[in-house]
């Protein structure tokens, strides 16, 4: 009877005490007991019973009404990236659910925990092409870590607990639960009981690595003359930034962070050498092919990092620390694989690692840095031409925020420039769409990030193209009143595509120039203040205005139109084939 009494107190006050919860109430109660505080969502027919239950839960669950379901998904991603807990999105069936597919695919590639609750038509209508019916289980199967269709209200607590467990543990990812309208309206036939701790017998990711793997890795690392660390998103997902710092400081090993691992190491740390990959740093790329031991931590050797696998780090012994065993040997052969959580692995490695320093090896990085500075950085930052360069704007933002803001970047040139010139001083400070490269990500994700980390300054940095993909979320931001700071780096082009057309398609600019709207007027229409700056002399005060605003604010920076992002390793090329200008 004890469980039953507990259920009674859990039920909303205006309901008869002897009743069991409806499925919809069970969804709400499960979320509360899971510790969820924020839901990003959009209502519609098939999820209406749950929205009705939500009406009674408004004091416990904050619901954010977005303007498009894609916005809900990306906002939930931004929230998850700040909190390391699953972001929750709730939408209706059919088009509501399909609109969520882009964020889900994005979260899958970038290992972001999401729990998506999706309404479905009534149970008896399944498979009949009913109004707003869509086989969302089928559609989302390849892009979710797990999905499940609930047709029975009694299943709800268990399935929701399982969803959070799967989304957040191991290598995190998106989970979708498709709940028929009937399962929402039906009453449970048993007392509600939520058990947060679940054991899924077929899913028990290894967290603590095998000691023999740790020892083999330590042996390789201790014998290295030119070791090099690539730290990825897995470091942040495991909250292992402190362990990583201890590790590199003891071992004296130079460390680069991947785009998703950005901010896991203080940009001013003497051992930090930047980032590898297509638009990463010169030395960070070239020296991949000169190190003798490559230590990859929580990263998956994406092709944007490795370029040509046939020539990638062939000289090096590879230590690969990774929680997802399917990533081991997938792209790069691991001489010493360590399957486990990055934090646990680094903790176990630390005592076995010799104190060391590699001054000559580190000097190699410095050499390449100097070349990169001369050829690229200097020109980007101390440009004499009329127009503002993206790089100088970002560098100024970085200075003004002391490298302590969260930047949420969209996809394109501005994304690469922002991550290149923002000097991240704190972990969990770069939110971007890396694996999927989803334009339209930044505006809703910045909002979600602000929801997840209200005490931090969150600055969205977006291109003029991508801004127009989820521009409607200005409405969500305005309604919330949260001071999300938005910068459009406007080059009047789909800049990144234009760059490729210039470099690899003979400057044949095929549909990359935009006739843009007046962004500031649009923002004002949504109730968000803003202004445009095109004059370098006014850039500094413009950024001050943006940063000092206690409301959302839009700053449009008119940038040089045909600027290119360098360094660049062309797609599929060897990492030593870096184009500098």
């Amino acid at each position: 009877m004890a469980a039953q009494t507990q259920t009674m107190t859990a039920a909303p006050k205006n309901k008869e005490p002897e009743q069991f919860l409806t499925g919809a109430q069970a969804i709400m109660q499960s979320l509360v007991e899971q510790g969820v505080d924020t839901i990003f969502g959009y209502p519609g027919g098939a999820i209406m019973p749950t929205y009705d239950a939500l009406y009674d839960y408004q004091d416990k669950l904050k619901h954010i009404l977005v303007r498009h379901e894609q916005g809900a998904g990306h906002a939930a991603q931004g929230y998850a990236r700040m909190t390391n807990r699953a972001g929750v999105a709730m939408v209706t069936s059919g088009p509501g659910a399909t609109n969520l597919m882009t964020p889900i695919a994005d979260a899958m590639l970038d290992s972001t925990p999401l729990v998506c609750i999706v309404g479905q038509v009534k149970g008896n209508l399944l498979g009949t092409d009913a109004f707003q019916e869509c086989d969302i289980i089928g559609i989302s199967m390849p892009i979710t870590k797990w999905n499940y269709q609930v047709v029975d209200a009694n299943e709800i607590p268990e399935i929701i607990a399982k969803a959070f467990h799967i989304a957040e543990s191991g290598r995190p990812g998106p989970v979708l639960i498709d709940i028929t309208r009937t399962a929402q309206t039906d009453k449970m036939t048993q007392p509600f009981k939520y058990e947060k701790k679940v054991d899924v017998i077929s899913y028990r990711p290894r967290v603590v690595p095998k000691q023999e793997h740790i020892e083999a890795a330590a042996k390789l690392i201790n014998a290295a003359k030119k070791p090099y660390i690539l730290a990825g998103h897995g470091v942040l997902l495991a909250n292992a930034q402190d362990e990583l710092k201890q590790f590199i400081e003891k071992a004296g090993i130079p460390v680069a962070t991947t785009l998703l691992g950005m901010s896991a190491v203080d940009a001013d740390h003497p051992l930090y050498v930047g980032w590898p990959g297509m638009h990463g740093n010169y030395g960070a790329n070239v020296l991949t092919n000169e190190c003798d031991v490559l230590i990859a931590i929580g990263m998956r050797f994406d092709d944007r990092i490795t370029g040509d696998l046939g020539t990638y780090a062939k000289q090096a012994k590879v230590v690969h620390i990774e929680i997802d065993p399917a990533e081991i040997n997938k792209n790069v052969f691991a001489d010493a694989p360590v399957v486990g959580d990055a934090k646990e692995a680094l903790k176990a490695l630390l005592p076995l690692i010799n104190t060391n320093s590699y001054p000559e090896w580190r000097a190699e990085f410095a050499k390449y840095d100097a070349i990169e500075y001369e050829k690229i950085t200097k020109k980007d930052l101390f440009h004499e031409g009329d127009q503002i360069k993206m790089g100088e704007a970002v560098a100024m933002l970085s200075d003004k925020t002391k490298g302590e803001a969260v930047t949420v970047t969209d996809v394109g040139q501005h994304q690469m420039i922002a991550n290149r010139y923002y000097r991240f001083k704190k972990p969990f400070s770069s939110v971007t769409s890396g694996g999927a490269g989803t334009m339209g990500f930044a505006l809703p994700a910045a909002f979600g990030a602000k929801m997840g980390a209200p005490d931090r300054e969150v600055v969205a940095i977006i291109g003029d193209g991508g801004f127009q993909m989820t521009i409607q979320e200005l409405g969500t931001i305005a309604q919330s009143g949260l001071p999300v700071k938005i910068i459009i780096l406007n080059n009047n082009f789909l800049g990144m595509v234009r760059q490729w057309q210039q470099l690899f398609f003979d400057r044949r600019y095929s549909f990359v120039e935009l006739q843009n709207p007046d962004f500031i007027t649009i923002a004002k229409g949504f109730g968000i203040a803003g202004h445009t700056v095109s004059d370098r002399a006014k850039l500094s005060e413009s950024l001050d205005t943006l940063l000092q605003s206690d409301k959302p604010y839009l700053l449009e920076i008119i940038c040089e139109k045909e600027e290119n992002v360098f360094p660049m390793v062309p797609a599929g090329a060897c990492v030593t084939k870096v184009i500098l200008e």
Partner: protein
Amino acid sequence: MTTYTLSIFTSNTIGLLNRITIIFTRRRLNIESLTVCETERKGVSRFTIVIRHDSREAVEKLVRQIRKVVDVLAVFGYLDHEIVFNEIALFKIATPLGGVPLNIKEINLDWNAKVVHWGLDYVVIEKNGTEQEIAEFYHYIKNWEILEYLKSGRVAVGKTEKGLVEYLPEGDWEVV
């Protein structure tokens, strides 16, 4: 091309077949045969999938991707010499009046096949064996008119003393 037999043990959930086959589709791998059945343990299904591939490494990657599916309990990839395997084929053969009669004794004794159904002017012959044995029998029986021919996918067990439970994650695996 080498033949690989994958034994995949899963919890018995809806949609899992789909989740597994899309892993093959994405890599443009052709499934030669697929057999799904319940096992001697409650709630555990067994998929036997045969593929041909010239890269062992690629098959190993495939196995790891399948293992990653949340409802998959265990996956093994075998070469032919590591397993005992079989398929079952059915042949519907025309036996018209005045035609050459089938040599039932030969079919039974030489081919280890048997007639499992006698129709009015046809018979159904069942032949068990490896792909090759079935192909050879096909060649022989082709001398009569084949009205229909089909065969099942491969079923296979590993040549080891271990039982299913030893492959599964630790738990109470109830015998059916």
